[in-house]
């Protein structure tokens, strides 16, 4: 882990870092990633579940329903003509 990598990852994650933060996270993440190397000593296993228990019933019927009032959902948001207002795309 080096400071440039920390900065690249932070940019990708939309987080700005000061020089002090970049240096500090670089050291801390380096220590943590070094600890992760312990995984190389772990035994092999052919199974790799996404969840600890197999979710057998993950598919359900897609039934349309209106549970919430749209105006209630928009409450507290910055809106324009009932659209959520966002920043510029370019």
């Amino acid at each position: 882990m080096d400071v440039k990598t920390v900065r690249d990852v932070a940019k990708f994650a939309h987080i700005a870092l000061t020089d002090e933060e970049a240096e500090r996270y670089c050291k801390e993440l380096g220590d943590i990633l070094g600890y992760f190397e312990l995984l190389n000593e772990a035994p092999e296993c052919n199974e790799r579940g996404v969840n600890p228990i197999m979710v057998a019933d993950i598919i359900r019927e897609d039934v349309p329903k209106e549970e919430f009032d749209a105006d209630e959902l928009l409450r507290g948001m910055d809106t324009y003509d009932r659209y959520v207002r966002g920043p510029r795309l370019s």
Partner: protein
Amino acid sequence: MSMDDVMSKLKAVNEKYRMFHAMTDDTSAGDADFLFSAKDNLTSKDMETCAGSRILEGYHPVFDATSISKLRDAGGKLVGKTNMDEFGFGTFSTNSGFEIPRNPYALDRACGGSSGGSACAASVIEDHISLGVSTGGSICCPASFCGVYGIAPTYGRVSRYGLIDYGNSLDKIGVLSQKATDLKKYMELIAGKDDRDPTSMVQPDFDTSYTKMRSVAIPKEGIEGLSKEVEAAFNNAVEQLKGMGVDVEYVDMPSLRFAMPAYYVLATSEASTNLARYVGMRYGHQDGDRTQKFDDFFTEVRTKYFGDEAKRRILLGTYARMAGFGGRHYAKAREVRQVVINDYKKVLADHDAVLAPTMPFTAPKFDDISKMSALDSYKADYLTVPANIAGTPHLSVPCGYDSEGMPVGMQFVADHWNEKVLFSVAEDWEKQFDLKRPEVSI
């Protein structure tokens, strides 16, 4: 003390212990059958929900989490949303954008995390139950530090609908209380399949019948690195268990030492994707300058409102998922999860539960926590992480006190869906354990 008496003192109690981020203005219990609180990463219609993060400040959900709505339907009155580490990222509830709960037994010590406010409320308020959420130990750790009973059920036992995600494959909603008998009573109310959460399982019935615990296995890996006082209290508790007719065997579970790094790879990977949705639109703070380009807008909001530990875990998880490093470690972490599950299944084929102290030390002072490195703090979870990564139900009971009167906890881990044996041993333990409640002078 009546529920109305409790309600009348709630504000004063909170001023002393800081367990609530948001709380009711009511001073009467009305027609409620019981009072409860919930960790602030569970959405609530009538109270702001922030999950300990300033980025969600001002967020008023339009719906209740299923676990909260089920307790309301059963006659419960939600009195407060409890303080916690930001999005659950911590072991001491000190990584919060808001108030830090204080330990009921010593105000200069932590409640544990990340459901610290819930454990504090369960410990301090009479006849109170609190909903907590565990990802890597966030129910049992604070239960241990605050001297209460706490259960994290089997993964998928309780709907995660309305839970603000930390790690989707790890998060479990459970209950904390002063009374072991409450765990079964209230878990039964919140358990069950929910069509709104695809990871809530079609599951075996919630069996509440008594099943005497006959044998426990103590992994040698679970009694390493303990403080002397925790070790002494635990050994004493093991002797008490033997006196209750429980057979005790010491076993090897070598996979446990790999659970910690695997957990942090999985948890931060999932967290970094879950937190991508907080960009200053839709939820919480929306005060960014919308004339900016979206990259700059998102970056400004996230940089301003995420706390230090949230940023650390986002960076770690984002890196862990990147090509090269990520492919290697993320895949390996998933393998390790299965290895740990297999290890538990093997031991639990011959024993009713795996037992170890819940935490390697008692509640630390805030001054000492501030001197810990991030990695030191992560490593403190080594006793609670294995059961969480395996999705196995686990329950912490208070089992002793150190020389300064701080509680020690021990944690039983049972096989998937076998919560009933945990309830039974906790209730048997409660009958003979001398619980010392904190002095609450309000």
